[in-house]
């Protein structure tokens, strides 16, 4: 039994048909293209990618909410198209950044109701609800109408809804989106603890926070424009950049020197420029350390003073840049078009 992967996709593709407002000819949007991933039982697997990468689409397909256009997807050994009922009995899902729930019911009633769909005896359900609410710090709000909760607290209630049924495979779509720093940290800690309690649990979570992916996940798939570009442990992904050198330079204002000057230096893989009050920060990913000399030469040539220089270890962000050619932020600003 245990050899069956918790999640497996083969050439999974999803195309949305977008009906134009005026014209009747539908445009097509490829949200997932030939996705092959395999997540084993007891893994905490992360999907990392910018807005519109296809993360939510993949979760919807795996949770049987959305049909694949082509390819195959299996969860807990069952096919999403042929055996959705088998899958639903074994999974649960939470999406962050939204406030769903029956506002007229109390927190406990909302959660109890969902527990009933899973056939959990009331007494057991109430015990778990109480326990989990304590863990996420909502214990004192158990009898509050959920419409009276702030959106962050509602999200915590939803997180409890997801964990409460002890699913074999749990899907978390940006679970910390919209939470404040402290709450997000609590949720991450809870996710880790929950995974540690049993070997039979699997989580697939999506995020576009690098730190979250790095801290939480056993393995990470980097996804952009519907394609999985790389999939490995965070350490192995960063290992790809082993020989690259990443430098952050604080310099005097560029004063009219075009930033492209630095981008075009041979050996610069990626360059970002952010002007600040009275100084500017330049960040370089260099093919090798020696290229730094050329960078410094350029600074001197334009009479720009180096105020500070720091070498940094590669992060998943750098891996993303390495794979896509620009940062997630740049992708989200639509700089590819």
């Amino acid at each position: 039994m245990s050899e069956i992967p918790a999640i497996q996709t083969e050439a999974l593709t999803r195309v949305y048909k977008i009906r134009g407002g005026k014209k009747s000819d539908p445009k097509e949007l490829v949200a997932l293209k030939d996705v092959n991933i395999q997540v084993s039982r007891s893994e905490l697997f992360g999907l990392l990618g910018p807005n519109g990468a296809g993360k939510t689409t993949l979760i919807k397909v795996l949770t049987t909410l959305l049909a694949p256009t082509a390819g195959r997807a299996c969860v807990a050994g069952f096919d999403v198209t042929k055996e959705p009922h088998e899958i639903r009995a074994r999974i649960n899902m939470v999406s962050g950044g939204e406030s769903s729930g029956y506002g007229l019911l109390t927190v406990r009633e909302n959660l109890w109701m969902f527990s009933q769909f899973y056939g959990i005896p009331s007494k057991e359900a109430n015990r778990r609800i109480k326990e989990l609410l304590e863990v996420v710090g909502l214990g004192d709000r158990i009898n509050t109408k959920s419409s009276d909760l702030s959106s962050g607290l509602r999200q915590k209630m939803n997180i409890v809804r997801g964990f409460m049924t002890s699913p074999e495979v749990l899907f978390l779509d940006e679970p910390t989106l919209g939470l404040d720093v402290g709450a997000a940290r609590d949720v991450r800690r809870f996710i880790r603890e929950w995974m540690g309690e049993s070997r039979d649990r699997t989580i697939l979570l999506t995020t576009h926070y690098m730190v979250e992916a790095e801290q939480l996940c056993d393995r990470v798939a980097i996804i952009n424009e519907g394609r999985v570009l790389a999939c490995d442990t965070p350490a192995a992904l960063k290992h790809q950049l082993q020989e690259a050198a990443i430098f952050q330079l604080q310099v005097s204002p560029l004063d009219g020197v075009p930033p492209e000057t630095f981008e075009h230096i041979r050996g610069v893989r990626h360059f970002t420029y952010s002007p600040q009050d009275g100084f500017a920060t330049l960040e370089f990913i260099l093919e090798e350390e020696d290229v730094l000399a050329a960078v410094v030469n350029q600074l001197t040539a334009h009479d720009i003073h180096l105020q500070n220089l720091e070498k940094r270890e590669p992060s998943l962000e750098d891996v993303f840049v390495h794979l896509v050619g620009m940062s997630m932020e740049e992708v989200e600003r639509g700089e590819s078009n």
Partner: protein
Amino acid sequence: MQFSWWKERERSLRTSIRSFLTAAWLGWQIESNWTDPFLFAVYSIIKPVAGAAILVVMYGIITQGAFDSPLFAYIYLGNAFYIYVGSVMTGVSWAVIDDREHYKTLKYIYVAPIHAPSYMVGRGVARFLTGTIAVLVTITAGVLFLNLQLDLAAVNWPMFLTALALGVVMLANLGLLLAGVTLMIAHHVWFIGDAVAGALYLFSGAIFPLEVLPNWLRPIGFAMPLTYWLELLRRSMVGHVAASFPTLSKVTDGQLFAILIGLTIIFGLMAILVFRWGEHQARERGLLDMVTNY
């Protein structure tokens, strides 16, 4: 093999019951969530009575006050029982819109191991209860203030209750059919339940006999289970009134029941097919978590 087949049946029966009961509980929480008893009174008492009053005034003007005519009881009872159409049929299909757009929970409900048709029908139960209050209030008001001729001792109760029970099943089927259609439609579905209920009001002999309709529209009325259901209710309550209208006078009570049962089964099968098709379409097009942004 057989053993596992039975186990499987038992499991899906449990799932259905669970889905139905939980949905009925939720529906009741929503229906009875009247923070203000005054609002509750407005919705469940004053609104139906006001609806009946408008009808009565119109009737009075058109017939110049012929409130003793059997036509009056015909119209009044037809209108009163039609309240069930708006509450049960519309209530079941409304659950899709309510969960999808208002509470944004439809996707979580679908991700759960539920039996979706049982869930939808369960959501209609509370509407049946509040609908019953409205029907009772309307009929009582008719008897007390409008000289509605109703002799409780003359009512054929077994026939009435059987027809009512069948009708609830029939309306739940229509509601499920409508819910299936609602699942497939992405935009502007808010009014679909009321629109269908309103249209059928004219084609089911609720407030006038089908003979009033042009020839080519009558088949719609004859194909609708509502027509036979309302006729059965009227016959069981005020036999002589029903007899003075020719529409179904040649049909016996037994035949009426047979037709109603037959149409209920046919619409039930259609409802399951349409609902499954609606779910399929919703999954193909990603509509289960769709929210209309106005």
